[in-house]
């Protein structure tokens, strides 16, 4: 009896320490980012590090006065939003088709989707930029969003494909027998079930677009995204500005993920808690 409770409590200990470790894995770097963002340059270079921020706003004030930050932030959000919408609108039907229909060239199609990630962007950027300049979509938010959509599509197709595959076709067939058309069966039965997964792939698309630097740096000039505007200048900047810049780059993405977490967690049946 004692043995069982002992092994239970040690199992619980392992479980808890696993949870703590995983949380720390994510939270500790973010916390250090925050502390160093709110520290004076001297404190950032000092060692050992303090665990309490000293609320020195010098680094953040610098970026607040940095010309073009706000419009870059706005561009980033627009590009990421368009990327998100396009990759869902194009990716989800492709995922549905792959999981529900047999058609010629299906395997080739799946392979081709993966191939879009096989070529590094620095290789593609030159011909793309030439084409963009010639067609007039150079330096536009929409043009850049098209590129980011291409990068995000494989993920959204593959994620939605496995989502749809996980839902028995019998559910849809039952809906048809009860008077649903193909479309209403999809919207009333399937869509609510896959929504969390679609949210997850939307977040993926958002983050891919948010983090992409090379294409953004080459294809936009006046309408730069935040990463293109800031990230390539940060690696050569002093440490305290690196932290503050990193913080500024991370926060909007975190806020976005936090805002949509409801849909994400619905997948595990713990929505609205």
């Amino acid at each position, binding site marked *: 009896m004692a043995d069982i409770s002992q092994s239970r409590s040690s199992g619980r200990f392992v479980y808890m320490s696993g949870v703590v470790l995983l949380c720390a894995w994510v939270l500790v770097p973010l916390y250090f980012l925050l502390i160093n963002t709110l520290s004076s*340059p*001297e404190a950032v*270079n000092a*060692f050992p590090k303090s665990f309490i921020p000293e609320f020195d706003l010098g680094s953040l004030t*610098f*970026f607040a*006065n*940095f*010309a*073009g930050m*706000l*419009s870059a932030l*706005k*561009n980033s959000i627009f590009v990421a939003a368009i990327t998100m919408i396009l990759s869902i609108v194009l990716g989800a039907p492709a995922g549905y088709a792959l999981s529900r229909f047999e058609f010629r060239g299906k395997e080739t199609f799946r392979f081709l989707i993966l191939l879009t990630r096989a070529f590094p962007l*620095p290789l593609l*950027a*030159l011909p793309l*930029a*030439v084409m*963009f*300049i*010639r067609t007039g979509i150079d*330096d536009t938010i929409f043009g850049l969003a098209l590129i980011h959509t291409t990068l995000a599509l494989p993920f959204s197709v593959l994620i939605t494909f496995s989502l749809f595959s996980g839902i028995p076709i019998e559910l849809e067939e039952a809906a048809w027998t009860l008077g649903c058309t193909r479309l209403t069966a999809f919207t009333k039965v399937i869509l609510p079930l896959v929504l969390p997964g679609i949210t997850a792939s939307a977040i993926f698309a958002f983050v891919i677009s948010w983090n992409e*630097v*090379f294409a953004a*740096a*080459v294809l936009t*000039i*006046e*309408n*730069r995204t935040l990463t*293109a505007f*800031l990230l*390539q*200048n*940060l*690696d*050569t*900047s*002093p*440490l305290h*500005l690196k932290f503050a*810049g990193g913080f500024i780059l991370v926060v909007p993405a975190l806020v976005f993920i936090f805002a949509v977490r409801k849909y994400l967690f619905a997948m595990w049946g713990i929505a609205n808690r």
Partner: protein
Amino acid sequence: MNVKKVTGAVSALALALGATAATADVLFWSTQAKPVEEAQAMREQVLAGAGGIDYQPNDGGPWLTRLNAELQAGSGSIGVLGALHGDFSAMDPADLVDLDGLGASASATFNNLAMLGTDSMQYIPWMQASYIMAASKEALPYLPEGADIDALTYDQLIEWAGNIKTATGEAKFGFPAGPKGLKHRFFQGYLYPSYTDGVVRTFASDSAVTAWEKMRELWAVTNPASTNFSFLQEQLLSGDAWIAFDHTSRLAGAFNERPDDFVAFPAPAGPTGRGFMPVIAGVAIPRTAPDMDAAKALVQHMLKPETQIATLRATNFFPVVDVALPGDLPPAVQAAGNAVAKMSGSADANPGLLPAGLGSLGGEFSQLYTETFERIVLGGQDIRMVLDEHKVRLQAIMNDSGAPCWAPDAASDGPCPVE
């Protein structure tokens, strides 16, 4: 109400609202002044008086890709290019507008380099810098007896760093061997000239073997984390390095933040003198510039004495035209200026030039020196064997590019021979 204030408020508002309307600003597409503080200073202090300029600093990759895309497409938005001599020399001179008559630097050598092998100026020298040494004042008590910090030799430097290692148990010499570090310039402009009085001709000579043996000795007293160091100002500030070699602008942060804690001094000397090398950045105009007159006006603006001094304050790069420097310059500029002056004025000075004429093979050339360092010093391979193997590749690079020798190598007819 002050008119300036109103326009300032209006432009701030326009910025906040995200003025995305296409403006006729001249796009200044640069690889220099990239750190956010420098970019900010370029926009607010250097370019503010020049009218609508959009200053955009970039990494080398996007910089070149975008430029090539505009050249291929035959139209573009880049007005003026700002880059290092090496970036321009890798380009086809036909893609750059001839800039004769727009101004020149005070140095005939620089002006000659800027022609990129043609008969007219392909870029205009814009600013210059060099590589120097810096040390934390904590390191000074360990200087070898009788050593003058302004006239160190490589042996004294090794002894100095060795003293610190013995006393503190930690190797405190910092070397920019990180992924973005400028280590290849140390070999090309400092170690080789100081030991072999050459860079290419003497690549595999017996004196080069001595040079690499010294490099190994130096590495033994170098902070082993140096393979991660790319901007030594960080390690000087954090105390991971007490003595450091780096580009003046990559040491500036330390001097500006804690001016009383650090000293700057010339690079050390070897048997064949005190080798050192300049860094030149230039401005050029691509043939696809949308508004050629505005671009030329910007190039001329960059060479005005007051702009040159503003650039010095913003970037820690020194003027290329004759100007009287004001007395109130930032600590980093004063420290670096003095060190460079002592270095070039020293009796045993052995100034080298930037690699020239290599064209697109410039990257490969530098890579070769980096690989030599990695194999000999980090990998511990036999020096003679590595040099003999790399000698063949170096000769191939020289032959393919047709580059003649540059100082301190003796001049050559045709491609520089590796002896």
